[in-house]
């Protein structure tokens, strides 16, 4: 039989349209379904087992701890019901640290997205050595957070940091960057320094925008800004939404750069400047410095629920704005 003699798949009888079809004709339907189920569960089971062991289990354990005064070592810890939750509602440090984390998220997430998108637009243009620029701009994002934190700590040290060295060159006295009120800006800069991550995702989104739409807009006389606002941004909106949600979740949980800026050891956590004492630092202090496992677990559960609520609100608020490029036929 030559290639030309092979009947097209469409012209073949349905039951014989491939090996699978032939085998399913031989096997009972229930057996095929069972095999598919088994394959599905077999492939997903590592994740499910990992989820149960490393996520659901610890979360359940933390929930139980949140109803106790457990400190890990003392013999007379006890069940306090909702006592820890009641305490956190009246704890000003909790609310202050939460509001600082909220303000940080509201500031850092939009700034990161704008910076990342701006960089993506720049490196999406036909530049010379574009690949090199893309690599250089993405590099900070692959520096481990510990390394980045240490670099910033040294750069902004009052007595030996490069930032004050530059100020000195222009005749300005040294600034205590790592103290209040400047410390918050250093953390913000550390976050923006890693905007390469957002740049890469935005770049992928930009390259998915059909060129014809921009050409049509140009023919219609639209300016570059108008085309960006009315074509690029709407088409990028799912990407931007993804970045907003993941960025918000990550920023309220920011801890690494803050931890590195603190004195070593659990007790050092509380010595960081007040403006950087955010929610996760409070949680860390309660767990590891004060040994209040129960209270700290309650704090984490409250954060978890708040993140779920805020994520839901973001989805709801953007439901009419985000453009999903879905094949209408696929919905049927």
């Amino acid at each position, binding site marked *: 039989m030559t290639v030309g003699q092979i009947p097209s798949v469409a012209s073949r009888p349905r039951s014989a349209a491939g090996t699978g079809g032939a085998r399913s004709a031989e096997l009972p339907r*229930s057996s095929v379904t069972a095999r598919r189920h088994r394959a599905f569960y077999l492939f997903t089971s590592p994740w499910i*087992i990992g989820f149960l062991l490393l996520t659901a289990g610890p979360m359940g354990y933390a929930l139980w701890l949140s109803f106790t005064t457990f400190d890990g070592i003392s*013999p007379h810890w006890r069940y306090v019901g909702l006592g820890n939750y009641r305490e956190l509602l009246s704890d000003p440090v909790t609310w202050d640290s939460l509001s600082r984390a909220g303000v940080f998220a509201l500031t850092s997430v939009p700034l990161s997205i704008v910076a990342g998108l701006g960089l993506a637009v720049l490196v999406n243009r036909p530049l010379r050595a574009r690949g090199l620029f893309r690599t250089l701009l993405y590099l900070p994002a692959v520096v481990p957070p510990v390394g980045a934190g240490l670099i910033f700590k040294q750069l902004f040290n009052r007595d030996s940091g490069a930032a004050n060295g530059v100020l000195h060159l222009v005749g300005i006295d040294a600034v205590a960057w790592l103290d209040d009120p400047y410390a918050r800006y250093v953390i913000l800069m550390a976050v923006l320094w890693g905007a390469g991550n957002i740049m890469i995702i935005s770049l992928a989104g930009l390259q998915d925008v059909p060129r014809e739409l921009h050409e049509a807009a140009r023919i219609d006389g639209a300016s570059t800004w108008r085309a960006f606002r009315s074509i690029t941004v709407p088409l990028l909106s799912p990407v931007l939404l993804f970045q907003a949600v993941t960025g918000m979740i990550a920023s309220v949980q920011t801890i690494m750069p803050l931890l590195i800026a603190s004195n070593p050891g659990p*007790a050092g956590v*509380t*010595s960081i400047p007040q403006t950087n004492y955010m929610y996760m630092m409070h949680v860390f202090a309660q767990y590891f410095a004060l040994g209040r496992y129960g209270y700290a677990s309650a704090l984490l559960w409250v954060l978890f629920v708040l993140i779920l609520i805020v994520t839901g609100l973001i989805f709801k608020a953007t439901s009419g704005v985000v453009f999903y490029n879905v094949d209408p036929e696929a919905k049927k």
Partner: protein
Amino acid sequence: MHAHAGAPLSRRRFLARSAGGAAAGAASLNGCALKVAGAATGGGESITMMVKLDDISTELIQQAQKELGIRITVVADDITRLIAMLTSGRPPDLVRGIGALDTPYFVARGVAENLDPYFARSTVLDVDDLDPANDLWRYDGTTQGKGPRYGMAKDFSQDAMYWYDTSHFDTAGVEYPSDTEPITYEEWLDKARRLVRRKNGQTSVYGGSYNGLGLGILFTSMTAAAGGSLFSADFSRVDFTTPEARRALTWYVDYAKAKVGPSLIQPNPDGWDGPTYVADRMAMSGNGYWLGGMINAEPKVAKVSRLAPAPVFEGGPRLSSCQGGTGMWMPRKARNKDAAWRVFEWFFGEGPAKARAEGGWGIPTLKSLRPLMPDKEDHQKRVLKVQKAELKHFSVTPFTPYAKWDALEALINQVVPAALNGQISVDTLAGRLNSVINEQLKRGKEQVG
């Protein structure tokens, strides 16, 4: 009902099986842990030590295996991990600790082994040879310094003493402190103000650093030096509003505001005094004799460095406390106590102890090892003379069993900066410290029972 082969797996059954798998996974993970720990315990000739990695070098571990026939598995010192190991009933066999601060806490919770029977039968560690600094590791349930021994210090210092670099004093034209008579804290601060060197808002040489091993223990010691006590008689409360405690607080606030040295609001970029001092960027460093280990390694610095007696408060007693007494203790549930004790004896009484004594890293905790302290060079002789004279004023500042020291430290770190930045008065600071720390102590007391 049993599912027949090939039947679709229901979600419920799948989740049940996943849970079973998870349990099996957990068991196998536990099995792995057992295997690792088992390797460390097999035949009683292996032990696990939780220490800082520079406490015991790889060479020492190999030496222990050679000399004692005991294999040592080192676990990095980490309170969270220690608590997890204690809670799971599989603690390390020996644990690093700070005698001055950890003893009451761990003993009150019943997790530390009484070492008196071990000392009684030891041929290496004679109780009569133990320096009084080891009493930091004693606790009778109410008083630190009395009762059974729960650990031993590897070395100690009188941590309120301070080192100074004469070259900076010469440059600034500041008179050297006396080798025998202590200056007051106010005089120390005055010297620091004259010694600090700044340019364009940057500090090139710190006048002096005085932060103790932590602010909690510093305030405790300074309050005692002012003639008072920070803790109530039963250690269940603190009172920062007493005149003595206020004196300590006021001094530290003045020190930090003067910006003559690293403080809570102006931390040392090097992390601690040692590197800054030997880099010739600090005129006085509030560290005891043990810093000599680092200074002796830099001959140029060692020649211009001197040790001075602990400052006093005018009208206060002359005390020179040990704020640390770092050493080791044995958990009550340690599985290889005999092997652990042999390592303990070796570490505190044999080769490693002698090497530490010769290096100048603290005063040996066995009186018999004192002749090994470095005294070949003139500057070493001078330092040793000052240190020996200071031993007459050695004191133990008891600590509370109701809170982990870093818990108090964390609370102090949180409250004190407002006063250091001039936002609140010392009186307000004292009130806030009382409030947060007494709350923590109250919780601790309830938990200890």
